[in-house]
């Protein structure tokens, strides 16, 4: 789960990481109230989960109440790369002497944690990594041992941060690592981490991605979830326990298992079609799940045909077939459905379906055949 900047800053604050004083606002009036409270000048920042806010006009400096009113009014409702701004973060503006970059993430090839620290912050780290990799001090951290202050001090020296900033940053990085690990983040990034002209180091932005697998030990994450403005279809899918990603094509996809679902997209693409979605219904494919999946796909007006691709492993195919039939009784589906059912009890499953085969419900023996049929129907 990606957090909004304001949520990330709230999360940082839990771990003692210094951020600018500020608050959220969903209306112009609320924005003014926050600005009056934290004191001018303030920065009015669009809360969207997409980069490039600044360029899109989503971040503005306001020196007085009139400027807050103008900027908050302009930014609320702004469309930034398809994300409509519904919330603002208003914070006291900081003078900046230097901008650094700091982050922790998982180093998958090495199976360790990876810290990245650079005296060149404020720009995209990918660009720095590409153009000047020596400007990034990489730190490989054994997850068993973690990061201590001594190592953190070594790291800030290696990164050649300004000396006045080093001890503060070393301490902040230990806190950020605690936030990353104890806070179960997939990513905890500060860009920029700033040094003020007064010699104080603090986080000016916050980019946090939480590891949803760790939800069970973080009841506090509920508050972040309530604030999500998700695509309604993805929200509905999540509520039903379905793994759904909306795409732009015309063939609706239902498959069991993420690999098989990806593979189904690939095969549809190979035979000249385009998938309308990725949808993994997981291991159990009973009538409830199948009905929910069909309903979800049916709600997508782009869909011209539906390809159900099930390989029975634990799931028995006859149960899946039964589920499809029950689901069809409950839900009115407007597009034709092509089924490919294989694996455990496939024969029994196909036999179950045989009497119901029609121009709107057909079976094919292989993935490739089924994909061809579904793509033809979508044209």
């Amino acid at each position, binding site marked *: 789960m990606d957090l909004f900047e304001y949520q990330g800053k709230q999360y940082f604050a839990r771990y003692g990481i210094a951020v600018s004083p500020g608050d959220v606002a969903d209306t112009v009036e609320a924005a003014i109230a926050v600005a009056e409270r934290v004191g001018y000048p303030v920065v009015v920042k669009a809360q969207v989960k997409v980069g490039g806010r600044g360029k899109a006009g989503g971040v503005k400096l306001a020196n007085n109440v009139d400027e807050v009113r103008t900027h908050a009014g302009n930014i609320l409702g702004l469309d930034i790369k398809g994300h409509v701004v519904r919330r603002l973060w208003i914070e006291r503006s900081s003078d900046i002497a230097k901008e650094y970059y700091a982050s922790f993430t998982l180093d998958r*090839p090495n199976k360790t944690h990876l810290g990245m620290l650079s005296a060149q912050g404020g720009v995209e780290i990918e660009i720095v990594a590409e153009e000047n990799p020596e400007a990034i001090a990489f730190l490989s951290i054994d997850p068993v041992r973690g990061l201590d202050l001594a190592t953190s001090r070594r790291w800030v020296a290696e990164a050649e941060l300004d000396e006045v900033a080093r001890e503060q940053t070393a301490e902040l990085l230990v806190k950020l690592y605690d936030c990353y690990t104890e806070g179960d983040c997939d990513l905890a990034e500060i860009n920029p981490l700033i040094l003020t002209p007064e010699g104080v180091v603090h986080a000016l932005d916050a980019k946090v991605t939480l590891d949803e697998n760790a939800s069970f030990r973080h009841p506090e994450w509920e508050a972040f979830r309530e604030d999500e403005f998700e695509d309604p279809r993805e929200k509905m899918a999540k509520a039903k326990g379905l793994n759904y990603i909306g795409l732009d094509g015309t063939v609706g996809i239902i498959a069991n298992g993420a*690999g098989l679902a990806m593979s189904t*997209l690939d095969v549809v693409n190979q035979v000249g079609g385009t998938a309308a979605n990725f949808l993994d219904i997981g291991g159990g494919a009973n009538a409830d799940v199948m009905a929910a999946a069909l309903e979800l796909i049916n709600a997508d007006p782009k869909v011209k045909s539906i390809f159900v691709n099930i390989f029975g*492993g634990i799931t028995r195919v006859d149960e899946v077939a039964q589920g499809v039939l029950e689901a069809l009784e409950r839900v009115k589906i407007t597009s034709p459905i092509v089924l490919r059912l294989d694996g455990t009890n496939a024969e029994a499953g196909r036999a179950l379906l045989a009497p119901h085969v029609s121009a709107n419900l057909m079976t094919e023996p292989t993935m490739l055949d089924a994909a061809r049929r579904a793509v033809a129907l979508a044209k």
Partner: protein
Amino acid sequence: MSIFVDEHTKVIVQGLTGGQGRFHGLRNRDYGTQVVGGVTPGKGGADVEGIPVFNSVREAVDATGASASFVVVPPKFAANAIIEAAEGGITFIVCITEGIPARDEAVTYNRLVEEFPGVRLLGPNCPGIISPGKCNIGITSGDIALAGGPVGIVSRSGTLTYQALHELSQQGVGQTTCVGIGGDPVPGTNFIDCLAAFQADPETKAVMMIGEIGGSEEERAAEWIKLNMTKPVVAYVAGVTAPPGRKMGHAGAIISGSKGTAQAKMEALRDAGVHVCANPTEAGAKMVDIVRAM
């Protein structure tokens, strides 16, 4: 021969008394696997359809001589269960648990490597391992596997593992071992570990490898194949049409920036002399051709 497990492998099930543990544990025993015990703290002395339950792995190992453990416990307890297995003397651990926090996986992986260098972990979040006719630990349906070799299978994806088995078995081409390494970000056993074992196994004549988007394990495997592998390898990589930045089911299956694309993986594999196929069916057909020509 098979890799990692065979007919002599004695298996305990951590979480045997739970719903999933009972279902898969008994199913594995029905397949013929030597499931010699279960572990559930506080339930020592009970049994599950004749399989004795112990309070700890150490007790179970002492009583049964098991060397393998099948970990089927909720995500919250999985990391501890794996470490308990290693501490208890188990040398091969299969963990099918889905949804373990990445932090726990990272710590567990590194603790195993640092403290228990002789222990292999398969998974987490994997379908398990089957050496057809000999041993099945995990959730793979034994029906779709065919004993007798000569193909080894290694796969990052669960359902595509079954698909791969099915493509071969229905053509009469058997498998030595099929290993599902799982799609999580920190897998205990990776492609290279399995490729090396298959390369060393005299009964395995060819290897089928199922990859997917995300990470760089396929690229690393390709490099290893180029330098070390003399047996033919057929590969399929899922996710050619996956959009960047969206997790495709697994936490591991995500294209970040220009990294982890199926195209890059296929190219690396092709460079290493691997037969790269466009879909599982084509991969199965190619493997059948290779085996028949042997």
